[in-house]
């Protein structure tokens, strides 16, 4: 269910912390700086921790959507915070 305007998609709803972020990181390694990754993640611990970890590693979240099934989808720009 990857949207057309992102470069890649990863579903991390099938794993728990800290593997959630590991899985997101592996997916980010597959794309170039400036490209976008769509991540589907669960409510609770993943949504509490993954955005913070992405920020620490200089990736920028550009949007968040709440899905009907209670999960979230975030759009991440790889290295989007590197200059700031």
């Amino acid at each position, binding site marked *: 269910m990857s949207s057309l305007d992102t470069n890649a998609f990863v579903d991390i709803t099938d794993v728990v912390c800290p593997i959630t972020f590991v899985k997101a990181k592996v997916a980010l390694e597959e794309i170039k700086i400036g490209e976008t990754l769509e991540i589907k993640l669960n409510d609770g611990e993943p949504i509490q921790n993954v*955005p*913070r970890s992405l920020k620490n590693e200089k990736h*920028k*979240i*550009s949007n968040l959507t709440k899905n009907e099934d209670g999960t979230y989808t975030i759009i991440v720009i790889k290295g989007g915070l590197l200059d700031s």
Partner: protein
Amino acid sequence: MDDLIYKELKKGGFMKQIQNEKFSLRLRVVGGQINADQLHKVSEIANKYGHGYIHLTSRQGIEIPFIDFKDINFVKEELNTVGLEPGACGPRVRTITACQGNEICGSGLIETSNLAKELDAKYFAKDLPHKFKIGITGCRNNCLKAEENDLGIKGGLKPKYNENSCTHCGVCEVICPAQAIQVDKTVNYLTFDENKCIYCGRCVKSCPVDAWNGTTGYITSFGGLYGNSIAFGQNLIPLIEDKKTLFKVIDTTIDFFKENANAGERFRFTLDRIGIDKLKTKLEEVIE
């Protein structure tokens, strides 16, 4: 053994065991940290004078069991060579406990290890009507259980929103555990209800564009108990933004306990007996 000698030993960290003339020696550990050389010496002492093991206490301390009465002075001398000394028991300020804080932990909002050392230098083993426990935890996750202590200190962050850099991505709304933030994406507008804010700092730590900033500080709680009676420490004053004020608050609290408590009365029972509002009023005077 003479009761007076026992009391004096207990004051100095030697806990009488059920075994005749044997003592479990409590060490003065601050903020749960001890350096490698000291640890090595502890190991040596446990082997030489004890039974070759140590006990980790519930409040981040170390005890070396089975120290014989006749060896107490030798053990003290040996501890001294690495800058260690016995801990405190009885009616006085006890071990200052602390998590690792923001120097180590990603969740931490305040520095805790040096703060523990400063508090230890100022208050450790100060004689009071009953035991008095102080604990420091770096954030709302509360790993160090601030509210169990007679005086608890917890890192907090008072957030400030800057509309200019906000992209209205919506991350802060979903990570806020207090539902204090609402983002209306259709009109790109964010509402923040400061009254609901619990100062956890998650909005600041997660915001991808630093539209959330803020001031870190100390959330304090008073009158916690976790023994025969159980009670949570209560928040009486707003987040304290500077260390100087924090120390004034601690001074005032300890003085209040000393002046108002009956001998052998835990702080919580003093507060219940004479009214917690009296402490609150005193604290409000020093925080201005």
